[in-house]
């Protein structure tokens, strides 16, 4: 049922969210604002990290149609982020 795309995407999301939560907890315990900022940033970035890993896996598997879909989505999100921040 699961292939490399699923395995690596899940691994990327889980690593990011677990690290983010761990840094957050440490930041809360130490009352350290920078650690909380980094922790929250890591939590927020976890779906995007999963998306980038999906894109990389699709390119690696030469599943080019789906890689183009993932690439278009990455471009859209980056564009939207830049529009929001600028």
């Amino acid at each position, binding site marked *: 049922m699961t292939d490399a795309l699923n395995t690596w995407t899940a691994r990327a999301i889980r690593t990011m969210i677990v690290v983010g939560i761990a840094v957050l907890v440490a930041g809360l315990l130490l009352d350290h604002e920078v650690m909380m900022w980094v922790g929250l940033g890591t939590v927020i970035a976890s779906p995007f990290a999963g998306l980038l890993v999906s894109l990389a896996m699709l390119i690696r598997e030469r599943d080019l149609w789906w890689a183009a879909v993932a690439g278009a989505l990455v471009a859209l999100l980056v564009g939207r*982020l830049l529009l929001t921040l600028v």
Partner: protein
Amino acid sequence: MDPIILLGLIAVGIGAGILGGIFGVGGGVIFVPILLLVFHLSPAEAAATSLIGIISGSAGASSVQIRSGRSNIRLGLFLEISTAIGAIIGAAIAVYLDDHVLILIFVVVIAAMGIKMLLDRKAGDRSSEPEDGRFTFPYEDDSGETRRFKVEHVKGSVPLCLGAGMVSSITGIGGGAIKVPIMNMYMGVPIKVATATSSYMIGITAFTGAIAYLVSGIVVFEYAAWIAIGAFFGSILGVAISRRLDGRRLKRYFGIFMLTMAVLILLQEVGVLD
């Protein structure tokens, strides 16, 4: 921080995370009013904290659902493109629209979808084996057997997801609540795949908004942190619960959840919950 507030934030996070893990929704409709009314955050702070809770719940649930193969990454990526474009259009035209009218339309739509899901006896599973194609995917049915489903109305899903993205961008609610019924009832995606794929998608949808809030300094760190921690563990619990539900029951519960959501949003809109 007051321990009661701390426990309250974790409890809200866990509750929304459980619902997100079961139904594939973000939980913004739960987070925002509670953060406004109980914890007295400003609307912008509540929206920022809610988005972070949604992402944490989505990441927790999807990391489990993707690994088990229940969440369909390819389908999620495809639908997310039109949703993201819809969100951009929605943000651009939001100033010209009356969001109260849109919210009322949204309430009618999700109530109608909820009733249809309650009455529909199928879980979205097709009995015949579909032919191979770009939009034919494997999934595990309730008995644990690997079967395949073919996504129907692929082209028709594009404007629907565009509309879903626009509505959720303008009103701030409803991403998952609209996408799950579209996937299940219109596109023939099995309900468990639809909810799991939606869990994956909502994190990506919320990503840009949350980054913008974090950079602009609107986020109240302690509140967002405890909500995120609660939502993460709640979502994993929600996924475990959803595994014990068969497709038909999950669909029925989703219908009840949508009707409850419609009533809550309506009460909020007419000022009863203020």
